[in-house]
C-alpha cells in the first residue's frame, strides 16, 4: 500500500476539484502509470485533455517511474506560460 500526495493544477485541478489530496493505492509497487490509470478511472474527463504529464517531487517523470510513500505527485495538463 502506497500513499502519495496529489497536487493538481490548471484544468486538472478543476476536474479533480482539489488542489491537494492524499491518494492511496493498494499495491506493494506503484508506478506513475498506475496512478494515471487510477485517476483516468476516477476522473474520466482527464482523458479528454490534449496531454497530461505527471511530475514527481517537482521533476517530470515517465509512467514507468516507481513512486514511494509521501511522494508529491503533480498533475500537469498542457502548460501555457509566457
Amino acid at each position, binding site marked *: 500500500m502506497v500513499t502519495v500526495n496529489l497536487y493538481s493544477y490548471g484544468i486538472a485541478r478543476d476536474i479533480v476539484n482539489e488542489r491537494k489530496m492524499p491518494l492511496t493505492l493498494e499495491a506493494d509497487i506503484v508506478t506513475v502509470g498506475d496512478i494515471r490509470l487510477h485517476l483516468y478511472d476516477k476522473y474520466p474527463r482527464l482523458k*479528454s485533455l490534449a496531454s497530461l504529464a505527471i511530475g514527481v517531487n517537482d*521533476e517530470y517523470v515517465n509512467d514507468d517511474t516507481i513512486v514511494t510513500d509521501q511522494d508529491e505527485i*503533480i498533475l500537469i495538463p498542457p502548460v*501555457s*506560460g*509566457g
Partner: protein
Amino acid sequence: MEVRSNKDIHIRSIALDEAECREFVCLPEAGGVVLFIGTVRNHTEGREVVRLEFESRESMALKEMHKIADKVCGQWPIHKVAIHHRVGSLDIGEVAVIIAVSAAHRKAAFEACMYAINTLKETVPIWKKEIFSDGEVWVAAHP
C-alpha cells in the same frame, strides 16, 4: 541563494520590471542584450479577452526555469540571463513574462532568447486561463 550568479529567475505576483531584467544582464563585456516581453493580448482567435489568470506550480516552475537558463548558458556564449514570470490576475497589456539575455555578439543573444521563450512555453508548469466576457477557458487544455 546564489551570489553573483549569471541567472536571475523569478515568479512574481506583482508587476514585472523590464529595467530590472536589463540591468541584471548588462555588463561591460556584453555588447548585445535581447529582451522578449510577453504581454496579455486583447483577443484570441477573434474572441475578446477581458483578462488572464496565471497559476504555477512554483517550486517546479522555478526548477524548470533554472534548467532553461543553464541550457542557454551552456549552448551559447551568453553572459547572463534573466527570466521573470508573473502569476495571478493580469489585465490586457500587462507583462506576463520577460526574458533578457546578454552576449558579446547579438546572434547568440537572439538565438538564446528565442530558445528560452520557446522552451518556457513547452516545459514550465504555468497555466493560463483566458477570461472572456461570456466564459473562461484554460489555454491549450483540449486538443
